[in-house]
């Protein structure tokens, strides 16, 4: 708050009330969803029938708990595999992009920069359908002309990874580029002066400096990939990530509180991941 402004205590209370109302608006649905995971009833709704952990651990019909539900576990596994793969690829490509845009000048740099940013601005559904149409065009063409069947160009994990990679690279490039901008190039020049090869300079001087940004870019890319729905929906084949599986369960079959159990599990998981990322950042700030 700006201390120079005249503060009437009425307005200050209005401000506090507004903040409280806004935070409740954000947190209440999450809290309700998590709470119904422990409700001993067949529907995620009141009345409250008693506290139970059945929706997490039970293995008997009709209340199959989250850790025994084959499809949900398969979906979780797919999400984790896709998330790690896409995040690793996006961090690698993002690092290369960061070095390219921070260190080099070349004709058309602005145009390429805008092309890099565009996947963030395009609606996710459009990204998904464009990659789907492009890959199908290639696959159909190959099949008709040469008789080769490249299955990985059909909707499936490869296309999902490709689709998510396109906009996650933008995010990681921006995060790593911001950190690289603050790097004092004199350190690199000093190392080169002392006789190190360029590769050694990269490994021992620049990359350790970038490591916090690489880690937080990885975590951000993983979280964004895990919760991404629009792009994935267009590209998914038979191995569905967790978001698509939950959506299918909810819309087509009808939801039981097992989805609330999954939500609670995901909230706790991503909270821990975000906490880990903050702790790593703070450790770096202390030593810097």
């Amino acid at each position, binding site marked *: 708050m*700006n*201390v*120079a*402004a*005249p503060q009437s205590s009425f307005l200050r209370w209005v401000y506090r009330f507004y903040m409280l109302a806004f935070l409740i608006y954000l947190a209440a649905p999450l809290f309700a969803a998590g709470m119904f995971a422990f409700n001993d009833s067949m529907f995620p709704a009141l009345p409250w029938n008693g506290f139970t952990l059945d929706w997490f651990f039970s293995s008997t019909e009709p209340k199959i708990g989250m850790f025994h539900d084959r499809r949900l576990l398969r979906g979780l596994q797919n999400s984790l595999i896709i998330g790690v793969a896409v995040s690793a690829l996006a961090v690698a490509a993002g690092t290369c992009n960061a070095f390219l845009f921070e260190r080099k000048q070349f004709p058309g740099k*602005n145009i390429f*920069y*805008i092309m890099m*940013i565009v996947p*963030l*601005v*395009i*609606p*996710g*559904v*459009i990204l998904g*359908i*464009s990659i*789907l*149409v492009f890959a*199908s065009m290639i696959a159909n063409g190959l099949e008709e002309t040469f008789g080769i069947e490249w299955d990985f160009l059909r909707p499936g994990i490869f296309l999902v990874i490709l689709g998510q990679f396109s906009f996650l690279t933008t995010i990681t490039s*921006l995060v790593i*580029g*911001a950190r690289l901008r603050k790097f004092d190039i004199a350190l690199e020049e000093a190392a080169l002066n002392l006789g190190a090869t360029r590769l050694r300079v990269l490994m021992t001087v620049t990359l350790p400096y970038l490591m916090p940004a690489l880690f937080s870019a990885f975590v951000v890319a993983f979280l964004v990939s895990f919760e991404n*729905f*629009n792009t994935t*929906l*267009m590209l998914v084949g038979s191995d569905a990530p967790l978001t698509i599986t939950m*959506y299918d369960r*909810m*819309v087509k079959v009808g939801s039981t509180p097992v989805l609330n159990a999954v939500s609670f599990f995901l909230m706790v998981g991503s909270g821990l991941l975000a906490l880990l990322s903050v702790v790593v950042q703070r450790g770096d700030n202390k030593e810097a």
Partner: protein
Amino acid sequence: MIVPLVSTLDGMDNSLIEAGYNLGGSRLTVFRRIVVPYAMPGIVAGCIIVFMLTAGSYLTPILLGGKNSMWFTEQIYEQFVTRYNWESGATFGVLLLVFTSFVVWLGLRLTGQNLASTVAKD
């Protein structure tokens, strides 16, 4: 909306507002004539991001929209997956892309920003 605005308003100097109050401005005048013009890039960036996220969202309108909602992205999905009419779905996709790009370009042009600095604010 909050993230671009916070990063813009963070760089604002308190003395600008103090000067406004010193010269006799009321709260509303200071807000209208000092804070809002200073924060305009952040407001535009936030509006663009909100618009893109809303125009391209699929899941929330489907889940919360009820039976009478006919969201455009829902139509795209239906043409692509349910009816296997990829030509029509692609047309809808291009329409959505052109429309949202036009609105973003218009917003950027009217307020004198450019895309790189708006989206890539760090």
